[in-house]
């Protein structure tokens, strides 16, 4: 079999070995090899390679450098260079010129070159794109991981089923490999129990398909960790549905902290002018239409939280809390603990002791849940819901 890779500078069997190690990336590797030339050749100063996550960029370079002893300076996650000093990227791009030696800089990124180009202009690197693996390619690559105690065909058919479920949502090779490893035991269960033979793929498919669908909703989005997923498979109680991470949103707070949070939410989402309407007993008849300003026609909830000063927060707090509360030190320290818990955000600088400003950084769902526990009807106090 003759491979795709051909180069006068390297022995054919070496190239063939490389080819086996980088399935489905022969074309790109060939391009790279020809760009680099033979060891004594001067090569192009900089090459920019982009392609999605897990499209084999690092892997190909790693293999080339190891097997063919190509030398190059490889920068992974090159997008981080943009945050570095402004002259770093241009300098790297023409490093060959600067150090006066045969050195190639290869930048790897998931972002296209257009997003890198500095305003001041720079040396243009050669661009090389690593396209996503196609379904067939994925199938081919994943099948190489076959389990030692089962036949390669079985594993290949397992991968086929897996891709059937996951290909529409995930093309990330690493994720797919991970999922394949997690669910293979379940797939083999009927085989080890002796119920099904290896050839009865349809029965195996029927067994594993609902299971994979469940995995898509839990372990794939990391609701459940892979360790827990494996434990779930072992116990396999129908009732024992494991609660994912996002199911735990409840936060226990001290009584006054809850009211402080409610006050903060009201202060963030109600315009300050409307406070009188909500918190003064005889506010007269102020209808919503009367004090609608032009820009307030849009919902405050769509605009996001607005900053408010400490005294406004306290004024609202004292009017919503149902009992007389002494303004003790612990009330104030609760505000700062709400900030450490990231439920409030301090806008002003922490050095500013006078009139600090805050924003409330929690969702309506969260605050509704909190106000329900203290029997406070928050919707009645929100300007948006008048």
């Amino acid at each position: 079999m003759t491979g795709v890779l051909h180069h006068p500078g390297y022995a054919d069997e070496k190239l063939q070995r490389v080819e086996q190690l980088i399935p489905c990336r022969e074309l790109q590797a060939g391009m790279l090899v020809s760009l680099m030339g033979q060891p004594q050749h001067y090569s192009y100063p900089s090459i920019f390679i982009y392609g999605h996550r897990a499209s084999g960029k690092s892997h190909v370079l790693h293999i080339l450098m190891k097997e063919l002893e190509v030398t190059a300076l490889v920068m992974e996650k090159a997008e981080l260079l943009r945050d570095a000093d402004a002259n770093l990227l241009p300098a790297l791009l023409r490093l060959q010129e600067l150090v006066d030696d045969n050195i190639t800089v290869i930048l790897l990124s998931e972002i296209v070159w257009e997003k890198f180009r500095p305003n001041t202009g720079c040396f243009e690197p050669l661009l090389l794109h690593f396209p996503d693996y196609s379904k067939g390619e994925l199938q081919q690559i994943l099948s190489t991981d076959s389990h030692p105690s089962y036949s390669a065909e079985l594993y290949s058919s397992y991968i086929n089923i897996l891709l059937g479920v996951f290909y529409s949502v995930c093309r990330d090779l690493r994720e797919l490999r991970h999922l394949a490893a997690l669910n293979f035991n379940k797939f083999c269960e009927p085989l080890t129990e002796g119920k099904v033979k290896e050839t009865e793929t349809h029965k195996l498919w029927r067994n594993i398909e609902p299971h994979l669908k469940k995995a898509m909703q839990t372990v794939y989005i990391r609701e459940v960790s892979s360790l827990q997923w494996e434990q779930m498979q072992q116990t396999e109680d129908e009732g024992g549905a494991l609660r994912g991470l996002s199911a735990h949103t409840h936060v226990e707070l001290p009584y006054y902290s809850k009211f402080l949070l409610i006050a903060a939410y009201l202060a963030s989402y109600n315009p300050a002018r409307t406070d009188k309407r909500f918190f003064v007993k005889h506010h007269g008849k102020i209808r919503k239409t009367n004090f609608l300003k032009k820009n307030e026609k849009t919902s405050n909830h769509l605009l996001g939280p607005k900053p408010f000063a400490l005294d406004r927060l306290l004024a609202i707090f004292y009017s919503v809390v149902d009992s007389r509360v002494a303004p003790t030190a612990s009330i104030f320290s609760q505000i700062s603990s709400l900030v450490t818990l990231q439920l409030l955000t301090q806008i002003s600088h922490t050095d500013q002791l006078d009139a600090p400003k805050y924003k409330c950084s929690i969702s309506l769902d969260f605050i509704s849940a909190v106000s329900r526990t203290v029997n406070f009807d928050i919707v009645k106090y929100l300007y948006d819901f008048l």
Partner: protein
Amino acid sequence: MTCVHSFFQGCFVFKPSSKKRKTRSLGETCVNPKSKNITWIYVLLEVLQEELNKKILDSLLDFAKKCSTTRQHCDWASKMRANEIPTAALVLGVNVPDHDMTFQSLFDLLKHSVTPHVVSVQAKECGVLKHLLKRVLEGLMDVAVDDDDEEEMEQNPRSVHCSLSTLSDWYTAKTKKSSSATPGKKRNVQDEDEHHHHHQTPPVVIIFKDLEGFNPRVLQDFISICSRYIDRLPLMFIFGIATSPSTVQHMLPHSVSSLLCIELFQSLSCTQHLATVIDKLILTAQFPFKLNGKVMQVLISIFLYHDFSVRNFIKGLQLALLEHFHSQPLSILCCKKKEALLNVTLLSGRDLETVRQLPSFIRFVEKQEAGEQVKLMTDDDHLKEACQKLIKDLRKYHKSYYPVLRCLHTLTSLLPRYPLGKQIRELHLICLEKNVWENEDYQSAMKLLKMLAKDELITSLRKCSEILSSAKSKKMKKAFTELDELLAKFKHLDVQEEPESVTSPIRNLQQQKKTDLFQLQKTLLEMNESRRSKKKSPFELLRNEVVEFIDGLVTCHLPPPESQTLYEVCYYSSSATVRRHLNATPRTSIQTALSSPCFYLQNESLKNEDGTVSNSAPDICIAYKLHLECGRLINLYDWLEAYATVVSAAEGQDPDCDTFGKVDDVKHARFIRSVSELEFLGFIKSTRQKTDHVARLTWGGC
């Protein structure tokens, strides 16, 4: 354990003062019972802390051990997913200061039994990635790490470069060295095997104490860098989470969270925590020091309303303890039985006089016969004997109070809508307040108990009998046998219960061939009648008997402590002191200081009969007083004039003199200083609305 340490120091601070008082009263020479009490509570607290966290710490340790062993397995599945970093998400509740202790013990435990490589970092030290890396490296490798690339040349030659590859090289060198050295050299022989196993590649544990505080970007970068080294460096993370586990998902995008294998560990909620503390420290006769209802109420409401901090609750308890021993001379009797009885004999004449003046003792004397009254009030030896007896009685009261309280709680916590509270502390508070059996809720609870189903009743009675069986006093033993007899009767009931063939009216109805409306009505009426006057079934009778029995126990053993003679010895009752110390009110203190300076300065000349500020008060007080009389906006010049007048009067100038009330440079400067002090305290602020005016702030005078 910081609180314990600081408490211990407090104990030393306290000692000299009691020594000083030694000269005053003979009875107080005995420092021992106090310090004994203090060391006793100190030991107990330590044990308690360990117990509280034991469960969660144990499971975390298991997790760590499991992670390090699965990594060493070489089967297909674990090889396939070895690139995930095992992570424990530890949810500890919103009270962040309490976490320190938990993390410290976790740190120690991990170091002791899993791996020598543990480091814990907190957000405020790690604003940028470099600092985080530096912290981690320094914590693990115990060397200086230089984070400044520029000055690399001048750096200490021993310092290392700040990157994970340094750490990974260090780790490789370290593990190679330790596996070539004789294993288990420093460790116990019995643990050797287990340790040897971990010894090969002990995990590197990084504890993030406050995950919420970290900059998400820093965390993401750190995690993705770490995941590149996972094949060489067996890392493991522990995230300390204060709010909810979903924070992890808010902070980390899928591309990063997919690098982690997160397992959730949820600690006890703080209210459960509190319940344990109360159970172990308060609801026990073991410990002679007690809190009265109001102090308890203060401590509990600080917990529930303000901070959810068990540590603060314990601190409050410690404060009350110190205050009690400090302020109550008779607290020397607040100790173990033997010592208390001994201390009674050592009471001085002055102490005995204090005893005679105790309200509870006066009530006690009034109930005695005339001769006895005189004897108690005059004969010191007789009083000592009486005190010994009373102390014994108080102890007996406590010995039966707590078991009965628990029994009552066991029964009432079953009832719908918890008439006497869901938690035992609520019931305890009711009982401390007044006679619980006079409470309306108690009576309705008893009525509900008389309707309880058999199964529920019997299971809870069994629990009661367990509680009573563990109590040691004679009275409780007696109550235990009585309850057991009642339980036996229930059992007996089961055996002999037979379907009684009561001829029901319905059956009569069925026997009649024809049913007309009149007949039906008549039968229904009859049924109603019979139901009303129905003879109670044996079970119902027995149930009533049991409820009466419980009611009897309650009335006999649960009167409030105030009804007991000499209760002042053990009960600390100054709730105001505790509140003042624990729930500081800075604004009120400032206002008190400004409006009545004599309160803090204790200078008699500042006192005015009508409560106004005297002219000779400090400048800021005068300025404050004058500003209270102004509206929202204050004209600075008018204010200055008024101030000059008041100060002139204070200086004793003749009101008719020309210079009276004139502003000179010194007065002007003094005025400006007080105004800026008021501004600093937040009573006024400058305004641009009107020239030469300042604005009073909302939270100012009123």
